[in-house]
């Protein structure tokens, strides 16, 4: 399978994502520059962590206007798998591909730590290889990762089984402990934790790998 890792000026976990899918999972992975107008023949997209365009104004707010965005929207609309991690999640939310918003952590400070997550649903191409309720130890590293949305949106996300991951120990004040969500089509997921930094034992945890493995399984099944 071929993953595309979208790189914006200021992305800094692009290499981590690339490493996890290519070196650890043995898939093809290519870098897609922010001014690309075509995504080529990739099977899935990853929007990596970092500080796209310096995260000036608001995290992800400038990235949504980048030249590559129309292609990403189209790719998502056509059912392509899009995974937004950290800044990637912020960009997906800013672009309206996912509901809600990510605001300053409740503690007002950047927080980097390993946190336990719970898999809330396996009914998604990003979590199908995990088991329901499975505990995953995955790091967070962000200053603006507090997920917020109005009650109606949150109720709807839950009713439609679109909350994929919740924090067991909430590091940022996210409402209802939400760590990761799906779009309506279930082909776009955003999450604040970094599965690419918990992808082999040397990283201190390999629990995050299941996210990428699920994506590969989904792509294989779709062929």
């Amino acid at each position, binding site marked *: 399978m071929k993953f595309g890792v979208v790189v914006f000026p200021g992305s*800094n976990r692009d290499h981590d994502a690339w490493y996890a899918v290519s070196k650890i999972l043995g898939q093809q992975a290519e870098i897609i520059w922010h001014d690309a107008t075509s995504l080529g023949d990739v099977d899935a997209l990853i929007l990596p962590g970092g*500080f796209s365009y*310096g*995260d000036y104004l608001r995290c992800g707010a400038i990235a949504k206007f980048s030249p590559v965005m129309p292609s990403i929207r189209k790719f998502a609309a056509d059912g392509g798998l899009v995974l937004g991690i950290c800044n990637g999640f912020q960009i997906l939310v800013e672009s309206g591909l996912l509901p809600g918003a990510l605001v300053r952590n409740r503690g007002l*400070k950047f927080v*980097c730590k390993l946190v336990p997550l719970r898999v809330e649903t396996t009914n998604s191409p990003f979590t199908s290889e995990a088991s329901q309720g499975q505990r995953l130890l995955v790091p967070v590293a962000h*200053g603006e990762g507090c997920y917020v949305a109005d009650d109606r949106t949150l109720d709807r996300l839950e009713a439609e089984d679109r909350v994929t991951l919740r924090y067991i120990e909430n590091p940022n004040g996210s409402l209802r402990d939400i760590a990761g969500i799906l779009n309506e089509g279930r082909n776009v997921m955003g999450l604040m934790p970094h599965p690419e*930094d918990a992808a082999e034992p040397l990283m201190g945890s390999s629990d995050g790998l299941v996210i990428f493995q699920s994506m590969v399984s989904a792509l294989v099944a779709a062929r």
Partner: protein
Amino acid sequence: MTPQVISQQVIEAHQLTEPEYDKIVSLLGRDPTYTELGIFSVMWSEHCSYKSSRIHLKKLPTRSKLVLQGPGENAGIIDIGEGYAIAFKIESHNHPSFIEPFQGAATGVGGILRDIFTMGARPIAVMDAIRFGPLDIPRNRRILEGVVSGIAHYGNCFGVPTVGGECMFEDCYNGNPLVNAFALGVFRKDEVFYGKAQGVGNPVIYVGAKTGRDGIHGASMASAEFTEESKQKRPNVQVGDPFLEKLLLEACLEAMQTGAIVGIQDMGAAGLTCSTCEMGSRAGTGVEIDLQYVPQRETGMTPYEIMLSESQERMLLVADKGREAEVFAVFHKWGLDAVTVGRVTPDGILRVKDHGQVVAEIPNRALADEAPLYDRPHTKPARLAPLEAPPIPDRSAPGMLRADLIALLRSADLCSKRWIWEQYDYLVRSSTLAGPTADAAIVRVKETGTSIAMSLDGNGRYCALDPREGTKLMVAECCRNVSTSGALPVAATNNLNFGNPERPEIMAQLVESIEGMAEACEFFETPITGGNVSLYNETLGEAIFPTPVMGIVGLMKTAQPTPIHFPEAGLNLILLGGFGTCDETHFGGTQYAKVILNSLWGLPPGLDMAYEKRVHQAIREIVLGGLAAAAHDVSDGGLAIALCESSFGPAGIGAHVEIPLGMRPEFPLFHEGPSRILVATSQFENVLEVARKNSVKALPIGVTMKERLRIDCGSETLLDCDLTELRQPWETSLERLLRQQ
């Protein structure tokens, strides 16, 4: 800002002495212009010229089989095998961090990162050694919070993991905090770039941020004592933009791949001045630039201001003539300014023009190599504390040990620094094998099978008692940290933070410290490949403790690291190196003396370097042989604190240990004698065998056990308590100290 007449006053304002000014006149054969005077003043400042320390720095060992580049370049370089090399260096940003903590610390990180990637290396780790005055003074809390968020802001956005460091407190840093930032990068060893302006006729290209009025005279500010007026120097502090630096990093590394770049140097202290004359001086060429082409952020800047600006995130490079377009294309892809501002000339002269008119014309050598060199008078280091021990009260009554241990765990120096390091992204690049809680941080080089272990250490208290021995202890400790992780220490970088070198007793501290460092680095085979000297760390005539800080780098095969935390109950505990010896005189520099007795006296702990080195060898064999379930260096706070730190892991495993009879219990529990490492093992005999083979002691002192820490002495139980009683104060103390009103 532009008085054209160079009066006595103007010379003094530039911190040049009369003989220095006379030397300028004789080098030029005429009076300097105002711009030239400014250029000389920064290049000849202590910060840039090392004029007080240079003759002593020559005593340091700088070579080994692995050293590819020693001092004198932007960073030192070490061969790590498989065709790869690492570049690393430490640098201080003390003065700016006092004046404006957030930007001061942020630009300190930015500056050291540029030193690394200007050589072509991609930064893969940052560490910081930071020191402040006591936290009961509100200003110190503000400085700490500002410095930490500045470091976090810059490193996190840039995308380099901040993997470790240290944070200590002492009265002497009140009004003169120390912020020493270390960075390390990796590259192919055949792709190293140097700051040389080679090839007459080649274009000199300016890239990165526009030049503004920020940071003018930063280098000379860092070369003077603090007075009341210093607070008005806020405009001298630069403002950093980590996003721009990230773009600069990617653009520079990509541009280097074109093969069109001949030489490159960052614009750090003394900005355009330093980069132009150093690049020319290294290559034996001249550089001619015209300031009209320099991208400017503000209008109406004078040549003086442009030359002395320390605006951040700028680079100067020399490209192959005719291949400029390739270089420009890369920088434009990353949205950065890149313009030709001049060319390399054959005459060895730095010639600065403004719209064609010459405003400065100085032989490069005069600036870079003819800087004054002082052998400043030095007496014996002043004793900063009495030699004699005060009466040490008997604190062996039941319950007192527990109270004292908690007081130590709660102290600013020893408490958990989680509040600090959780603000740092220590995981980005997914290469951090051991992070901020480890004795040494370990970062793997993904392209090879090698990992780099690194540790930063300093101990102002030991050095205050004896700069020479204190410095040797620091080198030993740093090497011990690296060895405890299983790595072989191979090289070092140093940051020498001292007071005013014009005072003979301060100069004596510097000389003693450098000589101690030379001896220890020679002995432990860790040559110094670069570093930084920060003098004039005084506020209102009060000098800091002599505070050298060491960064030591070690190499190891990439493997799962050995934790410092006890993983399970029932393991044997061995004190590798033994209990060590202690008497009242050598107890005066300990954390116990500081926190419990509120005192400093005597001498630092005694060090036997040969024994220390054997302990390093033994622990490496133990760790690499997979014999240790956990290993932790015994240092600040002594054995009791090491036991606590190893007990505060995720598994909640404590220990039951016995200390020897015959000494007062404070000594074995809290003395800080070197050459000791706590090892938890299920392979007791094998560990003893390795120790025997290396002729070092290995004392069984107890076992690990669930949830408790118990310390016996003979038939008496000195301490028996639940880990949470100890852990809670340790974990929450720093936040509490910062929240006090």
